[in-house]
Structure formats: C-alpha cells, structure tokens
C-alpha cells in the first residue's frame, strides 16, 4: 500500500486511537455475547467503530472508512433492537476487528493486509445487515424489553408520516474548525441523507476580502430537517462537534420525547444554559424570518415546545474516560534517565555534606538538612516516574478472553474464563512481553487441561470447564496464575515419557516439582493428540525462556483429576535490580543478587587445578568450577594467590560456579541502563549501571558467563 499519501503524524495519532478502540470494542463485544441485553456494551462498540470511521476519514483512508461504515450500520440495527445478538453476529463483528487490526498494521507499514479477508468479512456483515432490514419491516416485539430505545424505536420502525419529527439544527462552529479537520460540507450532506432538509447559510460574519483568512470558517448554517430518525441518530452525526457551543439540535415538532429529556436536565445545567438560551432566542428571531421566506415549512418555530439540550451523555462519558495521554516510551526513558541522574547527584551531595561537616560542623549540619529535605522530594519523584511505567495487567488479559471464546466455538468444548486482579499494575514492558507466554498457558489449559464435556460429566464435574486467570502482588513481586479445573498433570506419565525420550536416566531421583519441570524441556509434549492450537512440543520451553528473560520464574502445581496451576512470579519492574557490587582490580561489577547463593573466603587448599589450567574449588565436599573474573576480562596477567580473594558462588539454570573477586563492596538496588543504546551488545555483560560516585559499573550476564566457564572446564 502506498503510505506516502498519508500525513505520518495524523496516521500516528489515528493508530494510537484505533488501537485503543479495537481493544475496547473487542471487550464490549465479548461482554455483549455474555449479556445480549447490555445496551452499554452495544453503545461502546458502536462508538468505537464510529470513532475509527471518523479517524479513517480524517486521514483519508477511504477503504477503511467505507468498511467501518458498513459495520457501524449493522451495529446501529443492534443498538436499535431490530437485530438480536447471536453467536454468528458476534463472530462476524469479532472478525471485523481482526480486519481493522490488519488495516492498521498495514497503515503502520508492518505487513501487507490481505484485502480479500476484508471483503469476505464485509460480505458477511452485509448479509447480516440485509437480514435485519427484512426484519425491520415487521414490528419488533423484543424492542419492548429494551425500554431505553422504545419510544424512538416505535417511531422509526413504523414508518407512518405522523411520526416524522421536525428538527431545527444550528451549526455554528468555532472559526478554526477547518484546521482541526472538521468538514462541514460532509456534515451537511449527512443531514441531507436523513430526510427532507432545508439549509439556510448565514453569511453575515464573512469579513471584507482584505481581512478574509481563508483557513478560518466564517459561515454558519441553520437546517430544518424532517426525518423519521431520532434525536440520538442526529446527535451521532454531530458526535465530533457537540463540544462546539454553537451546535445544537432542537425539536420543533414531533413525538413527545422532550419532556423525558427535560427531566434529565438537572438544575445546574439549566442555570448554566439560561444565558445561552437567551442568546439563542435572539438568533431564533432572525432565523425565523429566513425560514418564513423559505416556505410554509415552519410557520411558527415554537419556543414553548423546545428545550435546549446540552451536550448529550455520550461525548461527555468519552471525555471522562479519555483523561489519559499517550506518551512515547522514548520520552519516558529520558525522564527516567534524568531522575536517575538526580538520584546519583543527590548521593554526591550527601558525600560532600559529610566532608563539609568535618571542616565546619555548623555549616555542615545546615547543608545536610537541606540535602535531606530535597532527598525526600527526589525519592518521591523517582517513585512517581517509575509509577508512570506501571500499567494494569488487564490489557494483557483481555485478548485471552477472545482466544478462549474462539477456541470454544471451534472445538465444542465449554470453557469459562474467570479473570481477577486485572487492575494489578506492573511495568509496561513486562506486561507487553507477557502476552505470548500467557496465551500459550491458556491454550495449553484449554487443550490439555480441560477434559471433554462427556468426560467431565462422567467424573462428576460441571460440564463447562473453568480457567482462572489471576494477578496479585506479594513478596515484592507480581504473581500471575493460570489455573484450570481439568484433568491435572500425571507425573508418572511425564516421568515415563522423559525416560523414553532419554531426557533423564532411571537413576534420576526427582521430586514432583522436578518432574513438572521436565515439561519445560525443549521437545517435550504429553498431548495425546496434537491439535493446531498446541501440542507441537515447542511451547513450554519457550514460555520458560520468555519468563526468565523477564527475570521471572514459573512454577507448576497440579493434582490428578483436580486441575493444574501455572504460577508466574515476576519482578515489579525491569528497570531496577537488586545487585551486589564487587571489585576486581580497579573495576566495579554488579552481580544480580537473585543468582547469588553464597560468598566465601576460601583457604588456599580449597583450590584445585585440572590439567594445569581449569580451576575448581571444593566447597563442603562439592567441586565447583571457578571463573577468575580478572582473567576472563583481561584485567590482569599476574597470578596472585587466590587465598586473599573472595569467591561468590552463583547459580543459573542448575549450573553453579564460583566467581573470583577481590572485594565485596556493597549490596544495593541499581538502575539498569542499556549498553546497546550507544553501543552494541557485549557477551557476558547484561547492561550497566551508574554508581553513587558517577562511575559506570557493568552488570554481569550470568547465563552467558556460566555457559562460557562450563565450556572451558
């Protein structure tokens, strides 16, 4: 697709909005499926499509605009109650979201979207819309069950002439509406399509030519519209303009909906609008004249029957929930950097305070008080900035609902997904990277965990299986659990299979957790039949890898016949780790504390050599390889006596190793900085951090260091 015709900035804004909307729509549709009478869900979905349509129009993406228009059309029938919610309908709408996502990724320039998919989806939508038109001609008994839409509904479905309402619509936009992408002509055309429409333009505010600014809008319009459409329909057209002060819809003649609305308006709004009303009346009289000239359409614009309607509820709600802004990760990272720097400077100021105190005690005390005061602020600042990166995990959970639903439709199994703790916050990066592994675990639970309906009934369980998805905080970590009430994992079967595959030998003495861990071995799959969803045996080891790359861990609990629980334990943030600072020659390195088992000061006779080079150390009867950090990093050539040194014993992935260091300095939380930002990745180094004195300390990447040391020994 030729992307050059779009304005990249507008596209970026559109994509941000559209991505949010797609998720919202999806959520609403799934809610709607569970509760077909949920009018909020319909409205949300409708609004979502409408917003995307508007946005697509704004950037000039006609294909998408047309597409969403058709979907919106179908949804408006659902909203009006002339179309009942069926599984087929939801499926069609869900697949239309996939199409939207396709369009968007194409717009992002990521990959080309297969437009035949959109056509297929469109055809499906049209068939469904066609259906509803036939239905529309017969009176709708079920519309009674939806009291919200009853009066309007009866007005629009039984298309007798009496129910035509006449509206006076005033369109006076702010001058800069054109700059903001508003297009009044399109709006006027839209109104024309609603029924009989008479338009009076008002030209009196057009300035003289020499003062005319062609980028500003100087015209405004009054419309008299005779239509079977409801006020809501008209407001929908004006959705993006309802914030404008001079835009309003008044009923001149029609069904007595006005009284109802009158009640809705509370005293406060009335008060606020009195002034506007008064102004409106002045304008009204001038409009009157024009209208009379136009013809006998509205001989008396009755002031009594009209009620000024302020902004309708819908856009208002949107404003409230839309109280967020999108900020690029780059800006956040920069902010993090600056705060990190401030924290480091703070440490230097404190050090200086101690020196100052030695020289001049009184001044030193005063100075330190100031530093401590600002310290409080800086720490609060750091907390807040870190907090910005935290997002509720809900965003990662929601797509799983869809996966479960699609799986149930496809396989005939009945599965409920119960989500709790969706508001639990964790680092945005972690949350995003968690999507893949969670998807996998949920699929596994559906495919291998939950039994078929017959089998469930046989064993006295409820027919529908349940998968619980939970998130919660604890022990300074975030826990996420995927639990199913299915058949559980049979450790005997796993053990047997591992033996057959030669993953373990018969002598291996494994406890239950150890046996379950075999599941994470590459190439291990216990599924009796392999489906397209899972069971190709490449899943679980990837899940483990991804969790570990987030510095997390995964545990399995299971009981045969009762179900299984996969528990993921994650750090609150990726940006900070607990580290131990060690000195090697004049360099300071940081070792992640999680991997450290113990530190010892060995005696000379604990060291042994093998083949004159590889060194091992004997710790309580066990021989561990020793990695001399100074030698490995080419910091020294002389062979000092090891007895003066310390050995930090670390473990990663069942490999244990001693790191030979000169001194252990401190244990502290360090902010991880990427090496790749200005450099490239370096084997053995996971990143860097800045110490209190401004020096750089490299963070050791133990997995790669250990691999290396095991190769050498």
């Amino acid at each position, binding site marked *: 697709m030729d992307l050059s015709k779009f304005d990249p900035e507008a596209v970026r804004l559109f994509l941000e909005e559209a991505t949010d909307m797609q998720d919202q729509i999806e959520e609403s549709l799934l809610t709607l499926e569970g509760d077909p009478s949920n009018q909020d869900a319909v409205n949300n979905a409708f609004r979502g499509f409408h917003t995307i349509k508007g946005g697509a129009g704004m950037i000039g993406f006609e294909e998408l605009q047309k597409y969403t228009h058709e979907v919106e059309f179908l949804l408006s029938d659902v909203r009006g109650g002339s179309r009942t919610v069926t599984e087929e309908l939801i499926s069609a709408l869900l697949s239309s979201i996939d199409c939207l996502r396709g369009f968007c990724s194409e717009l992002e320039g990521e990959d080309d979207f297969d437009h035949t998919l959109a056509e297929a989806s469109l055809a499906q939508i049209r068939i469904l819309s066609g259906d509803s038109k036939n239905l529309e001609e017969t009176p709708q008994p079920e519309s009674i069950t939806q009291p919200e839409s009853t009066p309007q509904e009866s007005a629009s479905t039984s298309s007798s002439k009496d129910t035509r309402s006449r509206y006076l619509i005033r369109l006076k936009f702010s001058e800069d509406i054109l700059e903001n992408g508003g297009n009044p002509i399109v709006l006027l055309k839209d109104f024309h399509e609603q029924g009989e429409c008479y338009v009076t333009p008002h030209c009196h505010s057009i300035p003289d030519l020499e003062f005319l600014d062609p980028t500003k809008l100087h015209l405004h319009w009054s419309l008299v519209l005779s239509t079977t459409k409801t006020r809501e329909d008209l407001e929908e057209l004006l959705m993006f303009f309802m914030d404008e002060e001079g835009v309003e819809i008044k009923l001149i003649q029609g069904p007595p909906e006005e009284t109802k609305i009158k009640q809705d308006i509370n005293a406060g709004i009335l008060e606020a609008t009195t002034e506007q009303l008064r102004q409106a009346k002045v304008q009204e009289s001038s409009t009157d004249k024009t209208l009379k000239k136009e013809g006998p359409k509205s001989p008396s614009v009755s002031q009594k029957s009209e009620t000024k309607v302020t902004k309708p509820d819908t856009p208002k709600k949107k404003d409230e929930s839309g109280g967020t802004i999108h900020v690029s990760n780059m800006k956040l990272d920069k902010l993090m*950097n*600056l705060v*990190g*720097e401030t924290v*480091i400077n703070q440490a230097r100021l404190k050090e200086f305070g101690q020196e100052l105190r030695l020289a001049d005690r009184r001044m030193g005390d005063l100075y330190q008080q100031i530093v401590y005061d600002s310290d409080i602020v800086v720490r609060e600042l750091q907390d807040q900035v870190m907090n910005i990166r935290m997002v509720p995990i809900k965003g990662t959970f929601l797509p799983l609902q869809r996966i479960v639903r699609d799986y149930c439709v496809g396989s005939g199994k009945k599965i409920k997904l119960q989500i709790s703790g969706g508001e639990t916050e964790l680092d945005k990066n972690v949350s995003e990277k968690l999507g893949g592994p969670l998807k996998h675990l949920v699929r596994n639970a559906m495919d291998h965990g939950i039994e078929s309906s017959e089998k469930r009934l046989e064993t006295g369980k409820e027919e529908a299986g349940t998968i619980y998805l939970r998130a919660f905080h604890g022990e300074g970590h975030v826990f996420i659990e995927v639990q199913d009430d299915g058949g559980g994992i049979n450790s005997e079967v796993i053990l047997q299979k591992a033996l057959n595959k030669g993953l373990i030998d018969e002598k291996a003495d494994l406890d239950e957790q150890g046996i379950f861990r075999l599941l994470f071995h590459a190439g291990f799959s216990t599924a009796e039949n392999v489906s397209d969803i899972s069971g190709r045996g490449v899943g679980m080891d990837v899940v483990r890898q991804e969790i570990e790359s987030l510095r997390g861990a995964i545990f399995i609990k299971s009981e045969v016949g009762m179900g299984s629980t996969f528990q993921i334990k994650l750090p609150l943030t990726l940006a900070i780790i607990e580290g131990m600072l060690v000195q090697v020659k004049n*360099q*300071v390195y940081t070792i992640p504390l999680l991997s450290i088992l113990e530190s010892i000061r060995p005696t000379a006779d604990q060291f042994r050599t093998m083949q004159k080079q590889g060194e091992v150390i004997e710790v309580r009867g066990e021989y561990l390889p020793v990695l001399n950090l100074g030698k*490995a*990093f*080419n*910091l020294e050539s002389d062979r000092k006596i090891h007895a003066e040194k310390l050995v930090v014993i670390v473990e990663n992935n069942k490999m244990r190793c001693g790191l030979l260091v000169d001194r252990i300095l401190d244990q502290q939380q360090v902010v991880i*900085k*990427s*090496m790749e*930002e*200005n*450099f*490239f*990745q*370096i*084997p*053995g*180094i996971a990143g*860097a951090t*800045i110490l209190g004195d*401004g*020096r*750089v*300390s*490299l963070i050791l990447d133990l997995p*790669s260091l250990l691999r*290396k040391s095991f*190769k050498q020994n």
Partner: protein
Amino acid sequence: MGLKEKSKYEDSYEFSNHEGQQYVSFKIAEETYMVDIKKVREFITYDRISIIPNLPEHYKGVINLRGSIIPVMDLRLRFGYPQLEYNERTVLMTIFVEEKLIGMVVDKVLDVINLPAENLQPPPETEMIVDRQFLEGLCEWKGEMLILLNLDSLFSQDKAIQALTGNTENSN
C-alpha cells in the same frame, strides 16, 4: 538531544555558512583529520572509564555522560599507532554515529574550519596503504592535507565483527 533541537542547530549553521560545510579538525599522531561539525556534540576530558571485557583494543571502555552510557574509542589505536598515556589534558570528542553517541579519544583538537564543498576530493584509488572505507575525502587547506573521516563505517565494521563473534558464542 531532541530531534527538534538538533535540526534547529543545523538550520543556524546553514544560515551562518554560505560558502560550504563546517568541520572540526584534530590531530592524530602526525596526521590531521576532520569530521562534520554537525556530528560533534561536545568535548570532554577523559575521566573514570570502565573497562569492557573482550573487545578490540581500541575500545577503551564506557563512561557515564550525564546518565547515558557511551563507549570510548581511541582513534590512535584504531589507526594502529601506539597509545599515548592519558592525562587530564586528554580530549574526548563525543560524536553522533548512526544515532548513537560515541566518545573518541584524539591527540589534540585544532580548529573549526569553513570548507567549500568543491575543495574536497575523493580519496586515492588504492586499497594498498589504507582502509579506504574510513575515508570520505581529502583536501588541501593552508598547506596541509586534511582527511575527512567516514565515521559510520568506522563504527559499523566493529559492530559487524562483534555481532559475528557474539553469534558464534551463542550457537556453541
């Protein structure tokens, strides 16, 4: 530095300099080199470096530049000269290379010069005596030969080598 900020500087140079480009010239051993001034961010003194293991000799390590970790390359070593002892007068130029910021140790910073584009000539057609890809051009200026450095290739070659060794390590 934000993109906007950068482009603002570029604009101001466009205005101040009608005759050609501006370059920063510096000395390495007996040779005089220059780089596009728009690529240079600042000059700092050499201080407290952290050594990075297992890298080519000319990478001295990384430093903390107001919260960013930036690598330091000694151009003397890069071009095969013996290293000079670092002292408090040793200068580090921080330079933008492919959107990364890199510190380069040079012997001495000389001057900012205005150079009309037509004065630049392509480097000699030889592969025998120099790594030609590091050279973007030559020019005669006040009786001296200035060598315009191609910074991008200077760094990307190392990156390629590093990526290669990194990969072989992982695949083993």
